[in-house]
């Protein structure tokens, strides 16, 4: 497995306050990696460090084989960043914005003109390319900022809160664009977000940060296994259960909660569900539906964050 980014014992301090504390993880090439955390967790600081904008207080960052401190400019040549605010030159047109940034990346002029046309078309901005960016709606500005980040076909695309200020329609549009860009180019994407559904939808792996510390890292199934033991199943009944709920504690059933015509049972794994249902049938329970409850990233996230608050992690 090749790594796009390798972070080793990374700490960064602003005056006496640690923004990041002893982080160590890798981002794989070609994956969508999401960094989750509340405001101030250190997500934007991480992007700045990885791109060589800050010098780490301690530790090392290797990006595509280059050192972030010594080779910041070369790293930035290979990356594209969508900043938290769209950071567009509002007095310049959409086209002028893209051409300016393309030139700073040293893209040859003829290729730049071709790519600018293509990308404006792809992002649905071609027919308004000559308008000042300041006249765009929030959603259009975000699309233009994303177009700018993607203009040079970066090997690593950093997206800092890509949908934080967007309405649901624009959010959906940006998500689709990100997914489609990744499918086309097989890029590595480093996504910083506090929108959990966004990470759940887009990311291959997630890392959770709190106050600059790494709380957990893995794919959603891995994190589920790691932090949410078992699986909840909801069973709806036609009539309330007659027997003692403890009778349902067959092998593999961890917990049972009964209320009127609903049973919630925590089972160790999916394979236990048929035996639980068989037990209920044997007790003549009239089952209406059996619904395994999918563990969401949100549940895991809040569990991790609250553990971090309590100092348990």
């Amino acid at each position, binding site marked *: 497995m090749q790594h796009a980014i390798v972070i080793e014992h990374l700490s960064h301090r*602003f005056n006496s306050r640690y923004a990041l504390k002893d982080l160590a993880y890798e981002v794989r090439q070609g994956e969508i990696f999401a960094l989750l955390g509340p405001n101030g967790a250190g997500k*934007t600081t991480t992007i*700045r460090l990885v*791109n*060589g*904008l*800050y*010098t780490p207080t301690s530790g090392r960052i290797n990006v595509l084989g280059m050192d972030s401190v010594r080779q910041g*400019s*070369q790293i*930035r*040549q290979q*990356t594209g*960043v969508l*900043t938290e*605010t769209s*950071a*567009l*030159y*509002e*007095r*310049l047109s959409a086209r*002028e914005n893209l051409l*300016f*940034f393309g*030139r*700073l*990346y*040293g893209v040859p002029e003829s290729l730049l003109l071709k790519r600018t046309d293509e990308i404006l078309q792809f992002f649905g901005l071609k027919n308004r390319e000559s308008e000042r960016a300041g006249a765009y709606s929030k959603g259009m500005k975000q699309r233009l*900022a994303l177009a*700018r980040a993607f203009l040079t076909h970066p090997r690593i695309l950093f997206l800092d809160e890509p949908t934080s200020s967007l309405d649901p329609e624009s959010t959906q549009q940006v998500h689709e664009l990100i997914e489609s860009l990744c499918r086309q180019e097989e890029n590595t994407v480093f996504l910083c977000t506090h929108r959990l559904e966004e990470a759940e939808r887009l990311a291959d792996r997630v890392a959770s940060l709190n106050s600059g510390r790494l709380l957990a890292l893995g794919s959603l199934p891995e994190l589920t296994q790691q932090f949410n033991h078992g699986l909840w199943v909801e069973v709806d009944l036609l009539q309330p259960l007659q027997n003692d709920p403890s009778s349902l504690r067959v092998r593999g059933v961890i917990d049972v909660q009964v209320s009127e015509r609903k049973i919630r049972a925590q089972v160790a794994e999916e394979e236990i569900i048929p035996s639980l249902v068989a037990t209920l049938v044997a007790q003549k329970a009239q089952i209406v539906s059996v619904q395994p409850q999918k563990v969401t990233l949100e549940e895991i996230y809040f569990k991790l964050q609250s553990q971090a608050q309590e100092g348990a992690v």
Partner: protein
Amino acid sequence: MNWKTILTIAKKDIKEASQNKAVWLPILIVPAIFVLIIPAALIVGFSSAGTALESPLRDPDFAMFLNRMPPFMIELIRGLNEVQSGIVLVLGYLFAPFFLIMPLMFSTVIAAESFAGERERKTIEALLYTPATDAELFIGKVLAGFIPAVLVTLVSFAGYTIVVNATAYPVMQRLWFPLPSWYPLVLWVSPAISLLGIAFTVLISAKTQTFMGAYQTSGSLVLVVLALLAGQATGVVYLSVLVGLLIGLAIAVVDVILFSFAVRAFNREQLLTATS
């Protein structure tokens, strides 16, 4: 150092600045006042006063100034009548420091837009994520203030030469302007004072969050010009070719010192930390 990158940044900053009314309005109005209105009004004033008693040359302060003049200035007005002498001394000599207001003002207003304005609008972050190095960004932004300031000053000088010669021709009967002392002023002191304005604005911009704040604070530099003007009018300093060269050199030395501080203030980490 990639000069293509530097020029791309400079061009973009000039283009952005040219779309800000607070930037281009003074660049239009100030030369109009200094190049057209004031010189034409003064020459018309002198010409119509003739050799009458109301001639400014009869003013006791001015008479004292005339008496104290060094030989190179006496040479300037040798053989000229009162009106001609008045035109030469006021428009060819005393007016010269006013001309320094232009490069100073233009360089500071564009630099304030380029450095503080970019931070104020939070566009600086996207710029810092590009491969451009700190040095390329810095030089590009300095040139964005320097090139227009020097160009507008040169164009204004050409315009002033035409206006002064044309308006005064009926009185002077010859093309008498520019005087030798103007060459070091325009070609040496003006660029130096433009850089002074920029370096000062960069330092101010590190502490000020807004374009207007940076521009207004940098405006205090006009005191340098006023000091020169007062020095000349009171006879403390006479702007000869040599004095012009020395003033330019002194400003250049200050430029080097200020820029050494400005360069240190301009790095990615500091720019971002101050912004966020």
